């Protein structure tokens, strides 16, 4: 019983960070880095930019923690900062190197950063998954930024319309319409490969 360390709540962590306890912020980073990375990667489509964005977002979060009022949950607040950081980066980059990046984001087995596929997968299945992954990333990058953001937050992160509306600073109706058009396009691009 003693060994089981209780995970402090987000409110507790925020309070401790405000009191200057940096270790509490480390806990927040480690708790949310993977989800934020999934969002950043979904929005940007390449790992370098996604890693930079996550870092940037955490730094911004740390520096503006005073602005976090606790009206939304910590993770939606973090998502919001991540989305904004990704949009900033996209703007700066002019969003044009996509095609070149495509090669780089192929998993590099030698680096050992991508663990082997689950043991149940045979090489053919593995290959198919990789190919499908490429198609998915291509398709999602073809969406306008707002649709992509809504799709990523909904389909990958499972956020509610209300949460997405809060993050994107728009109405729930707008969220629905962005999701609808995004899905329509994705259906067109991916549907035939998923039958």
């Amino acid at each position, binding site marked *: 019983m003693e060994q089981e360390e209780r995970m402090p709540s987000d409110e507790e962590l925020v309070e401790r960070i405000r009191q200057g306890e940096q270790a509490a912020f480390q806990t927040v980073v480690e708790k949310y880095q993977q989800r934020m990375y999934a969002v950043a990667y979904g929005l940007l489509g390449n790992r370098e930019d996604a890693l930079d964005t996550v870092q940037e977002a955490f730094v911004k979060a740390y520096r503006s923690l005073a602005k976090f009022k606790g009206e939304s949950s910590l993770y939606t607040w973090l998502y919001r900062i991540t989305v904004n950081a990704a949009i900033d980066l996209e703007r700066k980059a002019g969003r044009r190197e996509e095609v070149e990046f495509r090669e780089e984001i192929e998993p590099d087995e030698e680096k050992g950063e991508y663990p082997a596929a689950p043991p149940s997968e045979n090489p053919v299945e593995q290959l198919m998954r990789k190919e499908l*992954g490429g198609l998915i990333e291509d398709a999602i990058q073809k969406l306008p930024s707002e649709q992509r953001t809504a799709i990523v937050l*909904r389909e990958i992160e499972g956020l509610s319309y209300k949460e997405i509306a809060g993050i994107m600073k728009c109405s729930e109706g707008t969220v629905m319409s962005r999701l609808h058009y995004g899905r329509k396009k994705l259906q067109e691009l991916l549907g035939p490969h998923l039958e």
Partner: protein
Amino acid sequence: MTIRCEDVRKLLERFYDRELKGKQLTAVTAHVQECVNCSKELERIERVGRALKAHYEQVAVSESLSGMWNRVSEAIETPAAAEPLSFREKLLGILRLPKPAWAAVAAVAVAVILVFAYLPGNQDSTFAANDCIIDSVVAENCSIMVYETGNAGMKVIWVMDEGTSGTNNNGGVTS
């Protein structure tokens, strides 16, 4: 409550997103259990959603993020030099110019203000309700404020030398 396919289609995404409640939820749930076409449509939506989730989760799980805290903590340690304050930096750069050059900037700014002040329709006050402050910097010897006028759609740089103005503009937007 029976519901037509046509109406179900309009609600299907919200159903899939678990955003339906009450009667609508009951009706759509019952309908997709019986209607082959609508359940196929739902399946199509689900299939794309599942594929996306599975792919990006795999990507995130596969990425080694063990170095993230180091990156973040290093960046935090580095004082705000990395902060995107380019506009302010530029203005502060102006403020740091040697006096003569600085006087030239001030002269230009004063000229701009004079032109602005005498524009027809702007006699009432230098600051109108629909003016929008773009940014401002308050420094030791002087303050600079940039704002856009709602009426003329013009950007105005306002330079205040120490003591020359009783107007104190602390309301600068800084983000």
